[in-house]
């Protein structure tokens, strides 16, 4: 019985691999979504530290892009930041149509351990934005300094 169960389960897993990859390949989603490979390519994006991010904030020149999950964004974020979670990046970036392509963009995520700020930054550049900077210290460093944050208006 055990052997038969394992054999059937393996067949189901193989079918799932075939169906899953075929479906996402045909629909260009998930693993086969074009930007999924962008993160593995070296990117020309500049990185900035918390002091530079704060200067951009104080000058009011920078538009902060929050690459964290929308739930985390809804709790608190850097004031006036726009949420572009990695999973929904393409749709969210398409909503930035009214933003000038040379606008000073600062992308951040949780902190130094997350990569989504870099991934979202690459996609922003692919979308034509030319002044994209990744703030690697991210949310952790910003809040660690006690800099201002705000809650989403509900």
């Amino acid at each position, binding site marked *: 019985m055990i052997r038969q169960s394992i054999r*059937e389960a393996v067949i189901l897993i193989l079918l799932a691999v075939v169906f899953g990859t075929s479906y996402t390949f045909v629909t260009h989603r998930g693993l086969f*979504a074009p930007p999924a490979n962008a993160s593995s390519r070296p990117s020309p994006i500049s990185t900035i530290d918390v002091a530079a991010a704060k200067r951009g904030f104080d000058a009011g020149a920078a538009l902060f892009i929050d690459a964290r999950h929308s739930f985390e964004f809804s709790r608190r974020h850097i004031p006036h930041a726009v949420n572009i979670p990695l999973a929904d990046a393409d749709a969210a970036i398409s909503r930035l149509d009214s933003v000038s392509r040379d606008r000073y963009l600062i992308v951040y995520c949780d902190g130094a351990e997350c990569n989504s700020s870099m991934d979202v930054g690459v996609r922003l550049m692919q979308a034509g934005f030319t002044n994209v900077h990744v703030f690697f210290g991210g949310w952790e460093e910003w809040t660690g300094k006690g800099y201002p944050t705000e809650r989403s208006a509900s």
Partner: protein
Amino acid sequence: MDGERISDGEIRVVRALLRHRLVVLLVRVFLGGLFVIAGLDKITDPAGFAQSILNYRLLSPTLALAAATVIPWMELLCGLGLLLGLYPRGSSLLAAGMLLIFTILVGVAMARGLDIACGCFSQDPEVGRIGWMKILDNTGLFLLGLISLYARPEVSLVAWLRRDSASTT
């Protein structure tokens, strides 16, 4: 102490109950339906599911996308298997195995202090936050998977409907 021990007779009764056609049918319909719903929700939103996996902070984005490509189909196929009686043992084993792994992952995330959505049945971050209730839910479903695994393979919704229609004609 002997009076508190479960007798062989009681074990036989429980075993017979858990292997009863109607009980097995209900278990497979419930578990199968649940897996079909969970699978379909994720298939329609692989990126959202990949984000849910990433929230556990165990896999890289590429591996999360790979998992989000295959796991929903595993759920759908084993859900259909349980409902239709196709590969019922393999479907039960797969369902129980996935539930065991999901339960462990929720436990690990809780131990690491993560406050995240489970990503089990919906990719809405507000729905199904992880916690002891989720562990309890998954453990219960895992036990249903074991009941289905050790039950007769021929019991399924389709077999029951066929038998029902055959008896009326």
